[in-house]
């Protein structure tokens, strides 16, 4: 484990500038959230490849689709509560039903956004976006994974939703790992239980695994950035080789990675699967760590669920 050098969203801002310099077809937009989604440097370095379409997310999504139809590679950014939240229908019809090559890079997912409160705390975005046919859904964890996800998305021909974290995330992803569509990454091997997470919950899983190790429980930890399509091979292996699975995410218990893992394994290799996720409720204003503690996104809760397997 290494300490974070920057937040995942900062890495997005850095990576997109490098990509935009190499490829003039890359065109970025942020609906008046360039500073928050880290596109300010891009807008200043490559002004001919950038537009602030105003506080008009639905228009931005449609424009991105039209740009892609002419062969451009649009990257659009806003908060997860607005894309897919506010723009579900535009993403569904204008991007996905048109089979277009648009990258939606949304920041500020989950309770981790903290003090702005429930309105901005998207706990439903994965549930919404993954039901739309064709779109790939990715939630990288640390800055290394984020860089790889963005570079991969730029090369991939098709719609991609990337859920990028706002706060720093300890680094567990290896620089030399190759980012592949639908692949998961085993951060730690283990044979007793399996811990699966995406995004900001990955370091919590690693901490929980360390504590379990001291108790003589061998935990496998899987970073699963691809929520659609999923690495079903790794899931089946975990179901068969370990006693059960705990899935952790800064998202509602409904419709996120926990649901997606359960859907797959109920068909392929039924086993006990327990969630560490936000119950059926809205969040509130507070510091991110306080919210994680209050709403059960904690090492203690992971350990509790492991014991219940």
């Amino acid at each position, binding site marked *: 484990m290494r300490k974070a050098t920057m937040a995942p969203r900062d890495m997005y801002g850095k990576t997109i500038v490098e990509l935009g310099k190499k490829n003039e077809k890359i065109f970025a937009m942020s609906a008046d959230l360039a500073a928050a989604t880290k596109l300010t440097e891009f807008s200043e370095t490559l002004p001919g490849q950038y537009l602030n379409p*105003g506080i008009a997310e639905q228009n931005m999504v449609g424009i991105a*689709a*039209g*740009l892609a*139809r002419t062969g*451009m590679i649009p990257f659009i950014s806003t908060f997860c509560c607005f894309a897919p939240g506010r723009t579900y229908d535009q993403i569904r019809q*204008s991007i996905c*039903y048109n089979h277009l090559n648009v990258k939606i890079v949304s920041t500020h997912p989950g309770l981790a956004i903290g003090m702005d409160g429930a309105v901005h705390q998207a706990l439903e975005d994965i549930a919404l976006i993954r039901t739309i046919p064709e779109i790939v859904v990715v939630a990288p964890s640390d800055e290394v994974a984020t860089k790889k996800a963005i570079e991969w998305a730029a090369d991939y021909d098709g719609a991609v939703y990337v859920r990028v974290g706002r706060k720093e995330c300890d680094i567990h992803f290896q620089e030399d790992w190759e980012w592949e569509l639908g692949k998961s990454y085993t951060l730690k091997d283990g044979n007793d239980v399996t811990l699966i997470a995406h995004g900001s919950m990955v370091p919590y899983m690693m901490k929980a695994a360390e504590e379990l190790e001291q108790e003589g429980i061998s935990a496998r930890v899987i970073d699963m950035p691809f929520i659609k399509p999923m690495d079903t091979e790794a899931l089946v292996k975990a179901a068969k080789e370990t006693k059960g699975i705990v899935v952790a995410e800064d998202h509602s218990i409904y419709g996120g990675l926990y649901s997606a893992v359960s859907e797959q394994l109920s068909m392929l290799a039924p086993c006990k699967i327990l969630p560490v996720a936000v119950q059926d409720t809205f969040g509130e204003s507070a510091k991110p760590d306080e919210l994680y503690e209050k709403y059960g996104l904690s090492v203690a809760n992971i350990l509790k669920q492991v014991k219940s397997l």
Partner: protein
Amino acid sequence: MTENKNQNLKELANDLRVLSVETQNLIGSGHLGGSYSAAELFVYLYHEEMNISQENVKDPNRDYFILSKGHASLGYYSVLAQKGFFPREEMKTYRQLNSRLQGHTEIDTVPGIESSTGSLGQGFSYAIGLAMGLKKQNLSGTVYVMLGDGECQEGQIWEAIMLQSHLKLDNLVPILDNNRIQLDNFTEAVMGDVKWNSILSSFGYDVREFDGHDFEAIEGAFANRPADQPVFLLANTVKGKGVSFMEDVVAWHSKKCDATEFVQAMEELKGGVQHA
């Protein structure tokens, strides 16, 4: 416009109406009202105005058309069939299982369909993206987007209007099929008497208001677009135009002809009866 040309275009519009009502009668589904209000606009765009044909349908310099009021697919498919983008005979498969002629158009299922539409309010934004993409890549095409007046109740349309005006995107031509009726009622009853001309003018558009069923007027509206100022074509139309009992009647947004109505509609259309 020569009398010959005008007559030819009128016959094409009549043919579009016939093909639309025959298809609706055969399959028992489809929207005639908004297809008929836009019939002359469809015909003028595809047969006169746009640089689009079977030969150049993938040419990066082609013109683009987006039917934002996507429920008028019956009329849209009819004009595409006239242009030979797919066999006219295939209209019989419209809205049927395994057909490429979907209830609301799906992109690329038929050559020339540039976008899936039907959820109202989205086509204008898409057209802005097309127009920007063409400019960024120094491509010469023009983008045409057709909106319904009822559709303009969607907020996204106003996001697009503000932006096109601000960017002065002059390679995008919005066309408003102002037929004054939406699904449930007259637009005036639902949303008041909207002063389109003055509102759009105040956004900075060169607004061209004309009779959307008069080919000479349509030709004049499309001609001589200025550089650096977008035009807005405000076509005053009649919903259900061309069949007496459909004209200006709310129900004909999506109503199906019964056997008697179908016979009467065909008689009127084939007889070329002109109505006010």
